[in-house]
């Protein structure tokens, strides 16, 4: 109870800081009116939530990476590669299903660790490293799939994307689970505190004795792992593996994080905002579809939303800087 007042104030300044909650509410109301209530029908809400899951999961990993002033462009490729390998194991090699799931997760994590190692130990720039990794994984997936789609995944595999538990889809449960883990990790764990310090001032964090190298490998490994989780959900939903899985998802994940208040300058933001950011993107997509807006202009609208989010982040930072002086 000691600093009740200051906590109260910081709650509101945080709220206005990312503004994501306000945008969220405005969009929900606006779309409800425009679509004459279609957008808030329970069936549509479940639909929105399902679409949120994969990008949302990727956005959680992306948030960790961006807090550390990095970027992970390889998530889509990692998802494609792990689904290709998983599908081949399941259909052609006859590996037990549960083992295949495990293999998929291990592949994602391993690729992430290679990213992390290159960036933290070899000091390669994150942007180019992960872009190269995107090409490596995408190309490998393409080769493994031989340019075709692999069908015939075992029935049980549909559990992630099509099953449900207490009326809520399993995929949504998975998103909730990882959001919670991400939130707790960032807010209450030592690793989380160190991550914010690394993003806020890398040199000072190093001098304070933080194990920057190990932490950095870990965050890229987490991002890779979560890419594989996303791959599980997608393959389960469509019950096949194809190379286009995850195409362009890295940009959606980055956009979600930025809209959700994760600053590209590092050291700021969290997973709740990022997942809310995903929600906003999906809702806009969904609303525009319901309104039968041309898909071409939809892309432009999405771009405008991202543009605005980054602009407001930069303007807010400059304002804060001016206030300090």
């Amino acid at each position, binding site marked *: 109870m000691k600093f009740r007042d200051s906590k109260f104030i910081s709650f509101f300044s945080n709220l206005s800081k990312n503004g994501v909650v306000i945008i969220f509410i405005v969009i929900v109301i606006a779309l409800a009116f425009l679509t004459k209530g279609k957008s808030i029908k329970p069936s549509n809400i479940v639909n929105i939530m399902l679409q949120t899951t994969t990008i949302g999961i990727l956005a959680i990993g992306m948030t960790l990476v961006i807090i550390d002033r990095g970027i992970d462009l390889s998530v889509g490729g990692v998802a494609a590669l792990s689904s290709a390998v998983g599908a081949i194991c399941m259909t052609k090699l006859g590996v037990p299903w549960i083992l295949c799931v495990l293999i998929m997760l291990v592949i994602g994590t391993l690729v992430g660790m290679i990213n992390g190692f290159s960036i933290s130990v070899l000091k390669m720039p994150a942007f180019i490293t992960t872009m190269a990794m995107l090409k490596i994984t995408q190309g490998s997936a393409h080769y493994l799939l031989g340019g075709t789609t692999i069908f015939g995944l075992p029935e049980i595999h549909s559990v992630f994307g099509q099953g449900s538990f207490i009326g809520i889809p399993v995929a949504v449960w998975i998103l909730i689970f990882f959001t919670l883990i991400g939130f707790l990790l960032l807010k209450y764990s030592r690793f989380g505190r160190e991550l914010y310090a690394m993003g806020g001032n890398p040199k000072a*964090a190093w001098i304070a004795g933080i194990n920057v190298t190990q932490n950095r490998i870990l965050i890229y490994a987490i991002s890779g792992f979560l890419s594989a989780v996303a791959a599980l959900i997608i393959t389960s939903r469509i019950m096949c593996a194809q190379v286009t899985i995850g195409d362009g998802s890295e940009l959606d994940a980055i956009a979600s994080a930025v809209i959700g208040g994760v600053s590209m300058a590092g050291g700021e933001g969290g997973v709740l905002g990022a997942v809310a950011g995903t929600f906003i993107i999906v809702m806009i997509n969904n609303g525009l579809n319901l309104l039968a807006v041309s898909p071409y202009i939809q892309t432009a609208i999405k771009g405008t939303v991202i543009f605005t989010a980054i602009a407001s982040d930069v303007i807010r930072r400059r304002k804060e800087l001016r206030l300090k002086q």
Partner: protein
Amino acid sequence: MEAVNEPVVVLQNISKKFGGIFALNQVTFDLRNEIHSIVGHNGAGKSTLVRILMGAIQPDDGEIYLNGSPVSFDSPREAQENRISMVWQELSNFPNLTVTENLLMQRFVTKANGAINWKASHDLCKQFLQRLSLDIDPKSMMGKLSLAQQQLVEFSKALSYDPVVLILDEPTSALSFREQEILYEKIIKIKSQGVAVVFISHKLDEIMTLSDRVTVLRDGQKIFTKMGNELDKDSLVEAIVGKPSERKKEKIRNTGQRDVDSNTGLILEVKNLSLERRLEKVSFSLNKGEILGITGVSGSGISDIGKILFGIEQDYTGEISLEGHPYESLTPQDAVKQGLGYVPKDRKEEGIIPGMTVGDNIVLSTLKQIYMTGFVNNRIRDEVIYRIMDIIDLKPRNPEIAISSLSGGNQQKVVMARWISKKTRVLILDEPTRGVDVGAIGKIYSLIRDLTHQGVSVIVISSEFEEVHSVADRMLVFNKGKIVGEIKPASSVWEDAFALAIK
């Protein structure tokens, strides 16, 4: 070496006060076609005098004459337009660009269509370099040149504006001993081309060899201006720090000194520590619970000691032992594990995490303790934060505010506090009072003394001799990368240490 020519610049009876204290008091300084050195300890008024000449600050009183007519410069730019140039102590070039680009930035030779004429630009650059007979390829990258060469390019750049006065602020402080020789030769060349040179330095040897005249400042007063050949080292030292009889014994304010018994045991021992171009076979030891001052003027290598001990600088030779065990720290993280703490010189770049709260900044190095299970223990966290805030007497006593809203002094206390909350055995502080408001300096030093009562051994690295003298149990004096003396503050005055440091 005579200076019979007419003065180019005269500063007449200049006074300047900062916060009621005279930084300069009725100082008169004239400059002819000569190398005129200004010497004095930190705070003697050297930089104030030069900044007034450059128009960076305005004098409270006094006149400036340029070629006999009164002038006043409102900005460094205006001074530059009147052909007064300065080469700053810290290099400010673009390492990723060529020498030509560095030298001709914003004034390239262009073709009729507006495109850069590279051949002509390189040729012009070469001409400028030739003025100092420099054999540097205009096309080479600035960052690939040695520090001395980079400094000489800076000289060439300053000369390319055709100045009548060139101010050199400690131009050799970052250079190795051999590189300095090259610079001296070029500075004499600059003078021979009719440029009046103001030379600021702490190194008496180079002042003695280079200067036509020397002006000594002490506590804002001019002590004298003398011909270089009339001076010997001892009289110069005496002018800078005062006669031994004038060094009043009541100046000894350091009452807290303890003769730390070497029986308490050594905690840290350093043998033959060398770092290329910076340190030469340095050996010393630190007793348990002692405050050891490591002092020297800028460029003496003192900062490197801290960096080596804390694993920031790794290319050293020599042996270090910590409580009798061989010690080698490859990274700061490693050093922390072995019980060392470090407060860096550059607080903004290396100390604070600007986006975080005061509380988060305090516990940054103690995370392992507070997050024993991997997740936060809020009870321990609050306990640590409040205990630390009490120890460092932080006001406002609120851990939730942003660190960047605190004053420099308070930020420094927070950076120090990180190591209090931990069981730190040896705390190294590099220039702990830099950029700290005057009022907070005393508090930082009393905090350092309090730490030793908790069993911490402290190394204070600083070029503020007077401050270190007031807090240290023992002072090591560095000069040109070597230890040149050990001073017991209890039985000496700080000027004794400074005299050793510049000799």
